[in-house]
């Protein structure tokens, strides 16, 4: 796995973009795990020039990658696998804590802060055309906040030491 990470570090691309449907993936990140922790989530911002859907994902670090939705109902956290996440044309869809995420399950080893995790995202258009986008997700600490990309100007985060 080390070689995969090394390769990933060299090939690190913050913004992945596909040729056909012009799908853009921004700020992809994965929450680090502690040893023996078998699952974690990946989050990112997706945008497509044309209507499409994220239908699946895969990664060399996990044998089982699923697209999930988290929701809160009557103060109960529920997480379910979803068949797809719709990407309406030109609209940014966020996979973020509290909503959709890519779930990495049955991890054979820990996901370490500072490394990158390669993800292959598969999109499918209404016409049934499939397209994949490769992403290098950065591993953020396990204790990353729910909106780690937003620093400053966020009242509720005052006093939070980074």
């Amino acid at each position, binding site marked *: 796995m080390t070689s995969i990470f090394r390769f990933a570090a060299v090939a690190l691309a913050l913004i992945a973009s596909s040729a056909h449907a012009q799908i853009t993936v921004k700020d992809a990140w994965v929450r680090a795990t502690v040893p*023996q*922790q078998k699952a974690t*989530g990946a989050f990112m911002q997706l945008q497509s020039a044309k209507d499409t859907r994220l239908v699946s994902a895969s990664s060399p670090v996990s044998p089982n990658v*699923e697209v999930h939705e988290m929701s*809160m109902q009557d103060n*109960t956290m529920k997480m379910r696998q979803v068949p797809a996440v719709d990407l309406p044309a030109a609209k940014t869809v966020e996979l973020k804590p509290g909503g959709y995420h890519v779930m990495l399950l049955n991890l054979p080893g820990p996901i370490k802060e500072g490394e990158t995790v390669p993800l292959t995202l598969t999109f499918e258009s209404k016409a049934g055309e499939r397209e994949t986008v490769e992403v290098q997700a950065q591993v953020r600490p396990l204790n990353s906040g729910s909106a780690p990309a937003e620093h400053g100007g966020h009242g509720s985060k005052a006093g939070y030491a980074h």
Partner: protein
Amino acid sequence: MTLENTEMATMKNRPSRRTLLTMGGLALIGLSGCQRKMVFNGIDVSGSEQGRDFELKDPEGKTRTLADFKGKAVMVFFGFTQCPDVCPTALVRAAEVKQLLGKDGDRLQVLFVTVDPERDTPEVLKAYTAAFDPSFIGLYGDLQRTAETAKEFKVHYEKVSTGSSYTMDHTALTFVYDPSGKLRLVLRHQQSAQEFAQDLRKLLL
């Protein structure tokens, strides 16, 4: 009745004496006319028949009950380490709350009770809570004890299978005790660290 049930029953009896004493105390305050109604951001559950005590193990295998944390405010959250965002978010917030309390942060104990003891081994629990704050303690019981504890807290949890594994639906509330060991508040996941800290400052006065 199994041994576990008997223990649980004894456990439940213990705080009732304390409740009576405190009720007496409150009556006195009421008579002297200086009791001001405390207003909290969280739901005030003072005196309700829930979360009266627990008896769980810490990652070192030591049995822990509420009495171990007397003198401190205690925040209890139920969850599991494979949770992709609600549990880490709750623990990040708990660490923020501790910081917001400044010096009083030392008088706050955060407990993370796993609803997934089958996968959350002591090793994982220890490493997991330490990633947020070294003082946080992960607690676990066997399946029966976990169920009994959740029932006492009116916490719902459920194993739900997902494509290749399983996940746990679970109540995402934070239970807050005052330093005398009485359950006082239930805070919702949507509430901020600031709102949590405001309430805790009142309990730590």
